[in-house]
């Protein structure tokens, strides 16, 4: 079974992340770019399935040239090949446009029956793209998954949300999005690192992928950011001097916040 893993290069979560003043899109120069951590888990899950059942793992990403670093990381972990869509016209694309583009790319991978993605990127945080792709492809969608099992043409998964856990079952083809509990991603081995450079990466423009410029980009996006302001800094907490009534004052504070 051939598996497609969707990966995304994001600004390092631990660095200061900014939007540009010009069009409120991501300021890519402001922070180090890394492979989104949840994608490492998606790659890991695909590799576990491949190791147990055979097949090929293809990594797909959409992003600027330097997104090749994210691709190399996935390939060094053990993925077989990659498709990289890089085109200035993609700048500022919204979630819907992104999903359409990625669905098109999934269609180019021969024999792909399963797409695995992270449930939500650490930059955009829409958490919607995997479901949208499933919708566009007409494939089953199993999102927010913490446990995954592929048995023949059946996919079983445990979906975890704030409201509880659901046991899902679907037939292939399917799109799965995974959460942080799915696995612990492996470290790339030295051989994996050395082999990554030799693995095939096809770099495409939107024209190569048969995508029209009118379908992508900030000017045609379904959503745009109109305004952005940094989160206000945390204000200092209320300080209680304990003159013997400290306990009462803490309790009063908690009552005031409706916590007790």
């Amino acid at each position, binding site marked *: 079974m051939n598996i497609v893993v969707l990966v995304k290069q994001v600004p390092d979560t631990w660095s200061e992340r900014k939007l540009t003043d010009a069009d409120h899109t991501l300021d890519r120069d402001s922070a180090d770019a890394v492979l989104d951590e949840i994608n490492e888990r998606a790659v890991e899950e695909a590799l576990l399935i491949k190791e147990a059942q055979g097949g090929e793992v293809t990594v797909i990403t959409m992003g600027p040239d330097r997104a090749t670093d994210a691709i190399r990381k996935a390939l060094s972990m053990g993925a077989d090949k990659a498709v990289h869509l890089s085109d200035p016209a993609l700048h500022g694309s919204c979630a819907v446009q992104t999903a359409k583009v990625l669905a098109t790319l999934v269609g180019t991978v021969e024999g792909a029956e399963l797409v695995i993605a992270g449930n939500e990127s650490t930059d955009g945080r829409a958490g919607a793209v995997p479901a949208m792709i499933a919708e566009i492809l007409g494939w089953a969608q199993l999102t927010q998954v913490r446990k995954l099992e592929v048995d023949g043409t059946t996919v079983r998964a445990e979906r975890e949300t704030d409201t509880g856990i659901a046991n899902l079952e679907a037939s292939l083809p399917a799109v799965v999005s995974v959460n942080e509990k799915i696995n612990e991603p492996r*470290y*790339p*081995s*030295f051989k994996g*690192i*050395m082999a990554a*450079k030799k693995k095939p990466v096809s770099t495409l423009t939107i024209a190569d992928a048969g995508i029209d410029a009118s379908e992508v980009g900030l000017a045609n996006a379904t959503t745009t950011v109109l305004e952005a302001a940094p989160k206000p800094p945390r204000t200092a907490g209320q300080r209680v001097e304990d003159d013997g009534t400290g306990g009462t004052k803490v309790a009063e504070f908690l009552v005031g916040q409706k916590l007790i």
Partner: protein
Amino acid sequence: MNAFIETEERRALRAAVAALGARYGHEYFTAKARAGEKTAELWAEAGALGYLGVSVPESYGGGGGGIGDLAAVCEELAAAGAPMLLMVVSPAICATVIARFGTDAQRARWLPGFADGTTKMAFAITEPDAGSNSHRLATAVRRDGDEWVLDGGKHYISGVDEVEAVLVVARHVSATGERLAPSLLIVPTDAPGFTFRPVEMDLVSPERQFTCFFDGVRLPADALVGSEDAGLAQLFAGLNPERIMAAAFATGVARRALAQAADYARTREVWGTPIGAHQGLAHPLAACAIQIELARLMTQKAAALYDSGQDGAAGEAANMAKYAAAEACVATVDQAVQVHGGNGLATEYGLGSLLGASRVMRIAPVSREMILNFVAQNTLKLPRSY
């Protein structure tokens, strides 16, 4: 001219090793050391990922890289707070010597274990009356029929309690008692006549130091690595990687101390100002950063020379790198402690235990003074004093 920046693969290796090291970290390292245990889990995991065997030939299951790759692994683990001293010895000296000078049978016997870290070998050269001056070694090996017989002793040998065998430097002795060229012999730690006991050290280190005794240790013919009369060239093929690795180890420790000190200087505020705003602390830290970076650059140069087969040039560069790295390490740990004030010696901050470790770097595996002798005599052509 070669580029001064490392390859994409080398940088990816560093990132991967740093991530692994970060998961273990300094608390793991000190907890193991204080409990008298080894960092066995980290060794095993790094081995399985091929990080310890990066420089072992691919045909024996290794990574097919060079000492530069192995030094990068060593440095990143040290920078993560979990240095592994036996990396300086087992994969760097022993695996290198066996790969370069061993017979096919010796390679087949030992290299696959070095490739995945399942084999560990110590290295024994230092003697009480010779230091690491290989010309003065008293440990002797003589031929007896098909066998070798080893007699003598070694001091300050790292990790003998956790290895399968020790690669011992001994001088051949002729039938007439004449001392000949030094050779390298693989001595299993369970060989009859081989005993060792720990030297108690005031160091926080999972790896222990040993005094070794060889009393008529009988070894098979294939215990000898390389040719009987190869002498020093073969020995230095192992000692140059050792120096490069020691330099990498030292710059890794220094990087960790510097990062911690800089973080503290940025965040610790006294009278409303971060202490790092004061030049009395900022300038010494900046000077440490420069020292470390220069030492790293020299270490990479030494590794590049060694990996391109230029043993002679690599020898000078490796000695200079080791000197620079040790001095950078001592200066940086000292300054990091100073920046932390009393906290610098509090167990919680993990810097006090680096004082001893950094000081060792100026002494082992070759002392500051012996390196200065080497540079004086070889680079500057000054007369010998001994």
